[in-house]
């Protein structure tokens, strides 16, 4: 009880202090934030697995509990939060409000994972949502407004869908604790149950950027303050994933019992989610391929990666669940890494427009190395955590017989190479622009955070069994099917085996062989200058635009234009137009300004009501 209060107090007190003292000294706000995150982690470490009760509303006990899943998610959250707070040392320009809201946001996110009842869950959920909005705005400028408003609107809509789902469950079971809901969920009629779970999944889906609720995500991710984006995309979206997990865990068993909902050996919700996940992954990665701005590209990539997780959750067997949870961690790690690197690039160069960058490998080699590491994980190259999770997801898809969605997922993964290469090429490779000649490497806080993120990426890539082990423990504690055929370095599924360490050692040996072969070849000559290139004998100067980065995949775009034309955005814009139209009609009718018209309305209402009285039977 007290430990939980200390934990909450650590973050909220930190937020208050950062807000109040931050305007006096920039050092103070950074220090307080850093300290609060570390202190919070220490406090969390002492909490162990336990349950806490707080008396909150009408003396009701709201429950916060910590189990293995909570620990997994919270450590993920706190880890990335630590990275962000580390990176924030180099960002004095952010306002104290940002720091305060960041701490509140971390608190809200952690509380979501800890909450065990409807009230505290929704409280934390909303806390997490609005603080993120505040952060977009606190760093905010003219052009960010629309992204912020869009994010806020969507997250409110999502939260309200969640609220309705929860309230239906509450109305049907009269319980607010999850465990009690599970116990009495048998009393809920099928219709209400389906409604509730549809609302819940849709609501959580908004946060998890599930198509067609994804439209806010790219804008919001790309417009959020740069150091925070990694957390935003890596962790906040995971709350939606967690919510879907919770909803499925508590309700899916009940749904399984409804025979008419069974398709393909699982409930129709699972089937729908598999398709939605696959389409999200595929569509978003195709869009990501055509982005011109680095943050937009990564943002769409996030949407795509979240599609993988939703896909895997839909499969919902041991492989699917393992794949989803491991990909949640994988995505958090590599997306935080990539966004942090991009934040560093933006800090040094001031832009994320990829055509304006280029050749930064010469000036920021460390950033490049870790961008490659993050990219390897993103593209799912073996030896990184990205492959471990993706591989399980593929096996799950094929093993579950979801052949077409799996094909889409594969295509999405190939598209990931396309956009990833575009990202790393346009920013770090190619010719260096004149104005970036004097760019410096990122400060120490940045590259320390890179290293901290890269370690688990490789560790879980080489020891996939360790990751699967953690997740199996979680799934077993929830009595869900878990993958048990694993050793430290290898994982075996019904279809095949993957041994991360063998691949790693093999590749290491191959790399050594390659290097030996390379050094057999003798000396090389360093290029005389940046323009020492084969250009049909022509010599160009530095002003000449040699950076092939605008419209990188033009030919692809041309061929896929029919597919890219299908846009949820346009549909929503139409809806928005419609609402604005109705709003104007409403405004001009009921508030027309003529006092007499108001009296007319009054008389009409009175008449209608009086007349309707005659319908009443005595």
């Amino acid at each position, binding site marked *: 009880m007290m430990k939980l209060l200390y934990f909450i107090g650590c973050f909220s007190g930190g937020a208050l202090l950062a807000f109040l003292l931050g305007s006096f000294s920039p050092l103070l706000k950074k220090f307080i934030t850093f300290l609060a995150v570390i202190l919070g982690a220490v406090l969390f470490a002492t909490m162990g697995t336990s349950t806490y009760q707080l008396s909150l509303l009408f003396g009701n006990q709201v429950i916060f509990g910590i189990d293995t899943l909570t620990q997994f998610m919270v450590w993920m959250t706190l880890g990335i939060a630590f990275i962000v707070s580390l990176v924030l040392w180099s960002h004095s320009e952010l306002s104290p409000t940002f720091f305060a809201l960041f701490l509140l946001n971390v608190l809200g996110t952690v509380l979501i994972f800890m909450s065990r009842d409807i009230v505290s869950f929704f409280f934390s959920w909303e806390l997490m949502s609005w603080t993120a909005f505040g952060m977009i705005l606190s760093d905010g400028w003219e052009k960010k407004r629309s992204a912020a408003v869009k994010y806020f609107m969507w997250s409110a809509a999502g939260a309200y869908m969640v609220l309705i789902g929860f309230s239906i469950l509450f109305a049907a079971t009269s319980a607010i604790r999850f465990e009690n809901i599970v116990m009495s969920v048998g009393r809920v009629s099928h219709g209400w149950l389906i409604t509730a779970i549809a609302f819940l999944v849709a609501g959580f889906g908004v946060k998890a950027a599930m198509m067609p609720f994804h439209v806010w995500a790219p804008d919001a991710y790309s417009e959020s303050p740069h150091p925070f984006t990694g957390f935003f995309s890596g962790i906040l979206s995971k709350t939606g994933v967690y919510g879907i997990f919770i909803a499925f865990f508590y309700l899916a068993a009940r749904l399984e019992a409804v025979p008419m909902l069974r398709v393909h050996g699982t409930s129709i919700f699972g089937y729908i989610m598999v398709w939605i996940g696959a389409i999200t992954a595929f569509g978003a990665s195709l869009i990501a391929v055509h982005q011109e701005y680095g943050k937009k590209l990564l943002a769409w990539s996030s949407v795509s990666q979240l599609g993988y997780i939703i896909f895997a959750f839909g499969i919902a067997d041991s492989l699917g669940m393992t794949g989803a949870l491991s990909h949640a961690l994988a995505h958090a790690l590599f997306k935080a890494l990539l966004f942090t690197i991009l934040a560093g690039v933006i800090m040094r160069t001031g832009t994320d427009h990829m055509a304006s960058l280029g*050749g930064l*490998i010469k000036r920021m080699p460390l950033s*490049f190395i870790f961008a490659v590491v993050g990219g*390897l994980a993103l*593209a799912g*190259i*073996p030896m990184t955590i990205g*492959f471990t999770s993706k*591989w399980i997801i593929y096996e799950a898809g*094929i093993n579950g*017989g979801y*052949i077409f969605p*799996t*094909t889409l997922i*594969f*295509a999405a993964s*190939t*598209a990931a*190479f*396309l956009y990833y290469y*575009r990202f*790393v*090429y346009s920013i770090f*490779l*190619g*010719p260096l622009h004149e104005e970036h000649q004097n760019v410096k490497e990122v400060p120490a806080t940045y590259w320390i955070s890179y290293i901290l993120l890269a370690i688990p990426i490789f560790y879980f890539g080489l020891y996939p069994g360790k990751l699967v082990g953690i997740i199996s423990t979680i799934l077993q504690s929830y009595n869900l099917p878990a993958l048990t055929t694993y050793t430290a370095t290898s994982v075996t599924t019904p*279809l*095949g*085996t*993957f*041994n991360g360490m*063998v*691949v790693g050692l*093999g*590749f290491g040996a*191959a*790399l050594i*062989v*390659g290097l030996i*072969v*390379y050094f*057999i*070849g*003798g*000396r*090389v*000559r360093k*290029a005389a200058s*940046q323009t*020492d*290139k*084969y250009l049909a004998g022509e010599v160009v100067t530095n002003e000449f635009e*040699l950076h*092939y980065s605008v419209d*990188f*995949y033009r*030919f*692809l775009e*041309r*061929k896929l234009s029919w597919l890219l034309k299908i846009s949820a955005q346009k549909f929503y814009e139409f809806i928005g137009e419609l609402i604005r139209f109705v709003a104007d009609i409403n405004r001009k009718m009921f508030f027309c300004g003529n006092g007499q018209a108001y009296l007319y309305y009054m008389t009409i209402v009175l008449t209608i009501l009086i007349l309707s009285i005659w319908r009443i039977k005595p």
Partner: protein
Amino acid sequence: MNAVGLNITWIIFMPILVIIIGLFYLGAARKITARIQNRYGPPIYQNIIDVIKLFSKKNPTNHGVMFSLGPVMAFSGMLISLLFIPIGNKALLSFNGDIIVLLYLLVIAPLGMALGVGEGGNPMGTIGIARALTLMLGYEVVLVISIISVILYTGSASFMEIIKMQSGGVGHWFIWPLFLSALAMDMALQGMLGEKPFDQPVAPHEVASGPMVEFGGKYLGLLQLYHAIGIVVETGIFVNLFLGGGTLFWWFVKSFAVFFVALLINAVMPRFRIGQAFAFFWTYPAAIGLIGLILVAILK
């Protein structure tokens, strides 16, 4: 113990053998193409001479560390992929990873090369890479559809399992029951090998040999080796999935036969535009593959 020792010896010698055989494949390809074009053609060992020459060249231009590492990574990536594909009933490392692992290992090589090309900073190289990646998006879908149908048919993603199921003569090869998938995969293979009509990435007349534009000397030598291994690996996938593997000799015979088909097409076809190539993969081969996949799903 002895078996393990043998295995390790095999793992060490296999790559050398494959490199030499791959270079002979390339030489044979030149010879065969020449004969089709009514020329005499170079000797069949010409590519070995080329590689020796390339490694003996002095002072090839270097554009930076990643530029050097790129070909190395390409070579190493192909080498490690090679170890995960069973050759001639020898499992090598393929008990430690299945087809999907191999598919993703295959990506390391192009990725490394792409990074190297990127640091080279030649726009033509980058265009080549962009084309190659686009092409990859095209054929990967077809490839995956075919592979999924095989996995669905056998219920396993392990190469050795699949090969074991095909043992017992020509009639047991999967090319017969999974003919459509095999056809689709062969089309995809044409793109994977970069043979015409899918040689847009390297098209010498358009982008000055594309990704290779800045690579000379030993860099090019490494890339030649990478290409040589690549041909064996890529045709090997087809051999293992549809032609039932076989002993070492027959394995290479089948592999060369697959390559030979690709060569014949290469010799007589002009080049697609890249957009057309991409669209081609997503229409006919994909449709054939999907029909095959549906048939497997229904009949299974």
